[in-house]
């Protein structure tokens, strides 16, 4: 059964169509990365799923409920981490988490504040005022606030913006734990494609108001036939070649030079390469369509 199910979702602001028929689903425990250029409608999509915004048309079901009609019991099953928070400056870390946990108690068993603080690495700051936290610490608190009610579905909007590499690594481990042990379904947006590749079971790319790709990072890279990069050395000289069929290329390389070849390295196309190729294809396609339309009009 799907945790959320979006079918042919449309959103119109005034006369501008922001979403034009978005369809995608997530199953329990899945980590889904929603990618796309700025203005592609990622935030609008998430806000509709969160029940913060009314859609123009389409079918949306989140945890079996239409978000436009979700009640408090439904809301208690969601966790939300937005991009920028500056709220509750005067509160102390533990004070806020312990207080927010009480909102969930009628519906489910929230995290004990101290466990959660420990888990997101803020133990040393538990009694500090939130205004005294650094950007990265503040972000970790935001994540803690998002999951304090042990949500079944967690929305993470650019969760690691402002993290240093170490806390980013910690955060990634944490997300894996949430999906593996708590069976939390996670929908995240990020501009860090490396992060999306590490975290997500599935990637959904949104561009121009529709889903232009939906699949694992691996499946997407096969779809675009992105070239892999082959590096090797021969007689002390270094070479680089890019190939869409790296296995054949390497086999031929060895057949030709045998033991002269050293330091072979094959780098598969990263999600970044795939993403760029997909978005570029889509944009040139959209450009072509606009051009055709223009020609038809002027003819």
């Amino acid at each position, binding site marked *: 059964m799907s945790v959320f199910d979006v079918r042919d979702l449309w959103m119109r602001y005034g006369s501008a169509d922001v979403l034009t028929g978005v369809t995608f689903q997530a199953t329990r425990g899945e980590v889904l990365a929603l990618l796309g250029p700025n203005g592609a409608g990622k935030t609008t999509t998430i806000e509709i799923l969160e029940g913060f*915004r009314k859609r123009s048309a389409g079918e949306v079901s989140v945890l079996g409920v239409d978000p436009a009609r979700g009640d*408090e019991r439904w809301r208690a099953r969601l966790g939300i981490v937005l991009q920028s928070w500056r709220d509750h400056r005067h509160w102390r870390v533990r004070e806020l988490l312990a207080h*927010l946990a009480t909102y969930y108690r009628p519906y489910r068993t929230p995290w004990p504040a101290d466990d959660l603080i420990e888990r997101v690495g803020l133990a040393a700051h538990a009694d500090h005022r939130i205004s005294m936290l650094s950007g990265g610490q503040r972000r970790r608190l935001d994540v803690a606030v998002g999951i304090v009610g042990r949500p079944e579905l967690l929305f993470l909007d650019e969760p690691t913006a402002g993290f240093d590499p170490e806390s980013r690594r910690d955060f990634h481990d944490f997300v894996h734990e949430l999906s593996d042990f708590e069976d939390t379904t996670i929908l995240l947006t990020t501009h860090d494609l490396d992060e999306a590749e590490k975290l997500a079971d599935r990637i959904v790319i949104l561009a121009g108001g529709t889903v232009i790709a939906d699949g694992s990072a691996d499946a997407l890279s096969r779809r675009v036939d992105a070239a892999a990069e082959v590096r090797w050395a021969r007689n002390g000289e270094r070479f680089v070649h890019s190939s869409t069929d790296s296995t054949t290329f390497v086999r031929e390389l060895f057949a030709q030079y045998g033991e002269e070849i050293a330091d072979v390295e094959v780098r598969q196309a990263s999600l970044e390469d795939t993403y760029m190729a997909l978005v570029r294809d889509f944009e040139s396609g959209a450009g072509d369509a606009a051009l055709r339309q223009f020609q038809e009009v002027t003819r």
Partner: protein
Amino acid sequence: MNGIRLGLARGRIELRHIFVMPSELVQHFLPTVVFMVVIAFLRSAPLGGSTVPLGAVILTSVLGSGLCSGGLVLMTQTLAADRDDGTLLRAKALPNGMPAYLTGKTLVASGFALANVAIMLVYALLLFHDLALPGVGGWLTFVLVTVLGLLATLPIGAVLGSLFPNARVSAVIAIPILVLTGISGILVPITVLPEWVQWIAQVFPMYWLGLGMRSALLPDSAMIAEIGHSWRDWETFAVLGAWAILGLVLAPVVLRRMTRRGTGKAIQRVG
């Protein structure tokens, strides 16, 4: 109801923040302290035509206007600020978050306004102890005016707070409040002002709050500076009651509209 219980807990924590943080204390209570110092100098000058000290008249008037300028302004500005910084959106993301938020805010604004009143009342009783203590009737009026005053000003503050586009603009609320203080017979008796100004002042709750407090706490000889030489208690209750009803009817409508509108886009989310 669950939201109200959560809101009371929330309000208690936020009130504690106001009372334990030096920066918050200064910001919220400095005007009161400055005012009390000034009043000490006006201790012995009598109100024209009576034996009641001018300082006592002004101090009791400010007890009333303070309800308006304190609670209402705090409500307006924190609501606008909380919409800007994501507090409201956070409340929307929590089960029962909005009723809890509004309950908490109401408790903070009324707690702050009441603390202000209590401080000035104690000061007034110490400074002007030679004035006869108000009788049971006086205290009853005092309590009624205080409660009606909160009801008449806090919901309106919430409405104003949700109408202002952002926290910076909401600071302009201080200007009409200042003007109202000037024309509402708080610092100078209203009867010295031109009649058309008196009529404007009598539309708003501030004048009636000041009058109600004077009626409750001052001896009847101070009536000499009032319109019609009367405390007009019933009129006071009627006007404050009308403002309370107006606010309580408007606030839910306006707040619901604001809650629907206020999404993450408002706090700079990138599409």
